[in-house]
């Protein structure tokens, strides 16, 4: 019997702890598929964040490092500088990357550090139970913005791809989503490009993945995917924000 669907080798054969309807599993799979397709598992080192995907170090079969909250790009910088032949990726959420780790994010981009960053933007802190994220939408109700995010009190969401695109450093910035089949296919393409860039020595590549968090958004998984189309994507338009190779 022909096998038409299998687990990627780079993805460990263990149950994931993510909530029903969470899109982390999809993105994990896409990353693992790309690692398989590029044949780089044996020289890939992943850096896990603090957040829902903290235990990603158990889910990938490549070597993995658990970083302190927000510091994954700095850790990845060390790993990459130690052996530039190795492929280094970080997998970070919005609180990790765009709040506590903003300095590490911006400066690794400014240095055009030859690493790949998978940035999960689901507009909420999931692991700690649904607090306001730097990317929570105006008016969004969370545990720490119970009356809706009041931009006069706590400012506006940070659009990471737009912001980083102002830097001369980064090679490639793209925002994708994983709320329908078409978007998942596009996300795979972007993630593959972000890894290929590193393999080809091109430099800092970040893919922002608009993701859902049905549990903390207080929605059914289906409704959460619709909410991405209705609320998230209008605020965070999908597309390529920087691609130096396309500029040439």
């Amino acid at each position: 019997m022909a096998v038409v669907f299998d687990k990627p080798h780079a993805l460990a054969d263990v149950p994931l702890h993510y909530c029903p309807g969470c899109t982390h599993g999809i993105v994990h799979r896409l990353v693992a598929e790309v690692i398989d397709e590029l044949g780089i598992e044996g020289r890939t080192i992943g850096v896990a964040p603090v957040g829902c995907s903290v235990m990603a170090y158990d889910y990938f079969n490549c070597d993995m490092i658990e970083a302190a909250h927000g510091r994954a790009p700095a850790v990845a910088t060390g790993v990459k500088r130690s052996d530039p032949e190795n492929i280094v990726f970080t997998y970070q959420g919005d609180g990790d990357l765009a709040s506590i780790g903003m300095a590490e994010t911006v400066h690794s981009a400014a240095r055009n550090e030859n690493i790949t960053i998978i940035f999960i933007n689901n507009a909420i802190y999931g692991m700690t139970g649904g607090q306001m994220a730097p990317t929570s939408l105006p008016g969004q109700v969370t545990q720490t913005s119970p009356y809706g995010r009041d931009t006069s009190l706590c400012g506006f969401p940070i659009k990471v791809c737009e912001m980083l695109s102002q830097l001369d450093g980064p090679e490639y910035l793209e925002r994708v989503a994983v709320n329908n089949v078409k978007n998942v296919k596009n996300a795979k393409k972007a993630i593959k490009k972000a890894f290929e860039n590193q393999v080809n020595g091109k430099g800092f590549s970040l893919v922002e993945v608009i993701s859902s968090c049905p549990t903390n958004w207080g929605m059914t998984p289906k409704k959460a995917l619709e909410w991405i189309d209705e609320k998230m994507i209008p605020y965070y338009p999908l597309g390529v924000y920087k691609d130096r190779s396309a500029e040439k």
Partner: protein
Amino acid sequence: MAEKVLMKGNEAIAEAAILAGCRHYFGYPITPQTEVAAYMAKRMPKIGGTFLQAESEIAAINMVYGVSATGKRVMTSSSSPGISLKGEGLSYLAGADLPALVVNVQRGGPGLGGIQPSQSDYFQATKGGAHGDFHMIVLAPASVQEMAELTVKGFDLADKYRMTAMILADGTMGQMMEPVSLDFAEGEKVEKPWATNGTKMARPHNVVNSLFLKPEQLEKTNFERFERYETIKQNEVMYEEYMMEDAEICVVAFGIASRVSKNAINEARAKGIKVGLIRPITLWPFPEKAIAAAAEKVKKFISVELSMGQMIEDVRLAVNGKAPVTLCNRTGGMIPEPEQVLAAITEAAK
């Protein structure tokens, strides 16, 4: 023996690190340790190494964490306020059992404090320095030669015990020049089968991690780590005794304070006062046995420090009530003069 050259303590640390096989340095400018970074910036590109000025001390220590995870020798350096920022990384390095060399060229505090020499980070260095159950090996050089020697030793100890070794120096040690002989070879290579440097598809994946959500598991790793600490306490204590044979008064001092104290002890001896010095070279593990042994015969102890009195707590623990322990100190960037220490010795001799 290699020809002696005059070098600043900060530069001696940097060159010794290179001789010890360190090829990765991450730092951030802060007085009075900046010469370490400047030296590395000059040397590393010429020997195929990495010098990177990080965006912050926090980033620098996490870059250290990344290189260490791959199994290579790596270091960072800073001064007091910067070490506080590195605290997070120091705890994670401990939790993940990663070796690293961290240099603290101390300045006065708290807060932004000043930039003149101090020893007021003693508590921070010897009691862990950040959250969680852990220690660092803390080495206290008292000369430029020792700045170099203890750097090499620090890398060896860090690798041997999979933990951070900290050089706890101060502004004078960093800034002063003395003749130094840099006659070091790279120490014995320690196998690091735990390193995350790529599976090569030849082994199960390695994970470098400090997260243990099951308390039973976290407790177990902490117990194991502290068993290792016991071995270190047994095997790695270093100290110098000076004129202790017949001493009735014992000065305890490290780093620059020990040198000021030696001047005072020489003068006191000339006046017939039987005084000696115990100089801890490892501040953790602390030479508690040597001090306890001295407490059997010495009548009085004086702890000489560039702080409000931090090491004195460890001296008192070791003396265990057998003799009075007094403090002779300056703080905030001031350095005790030999006259002040001599006065304390004379007072104790009354």
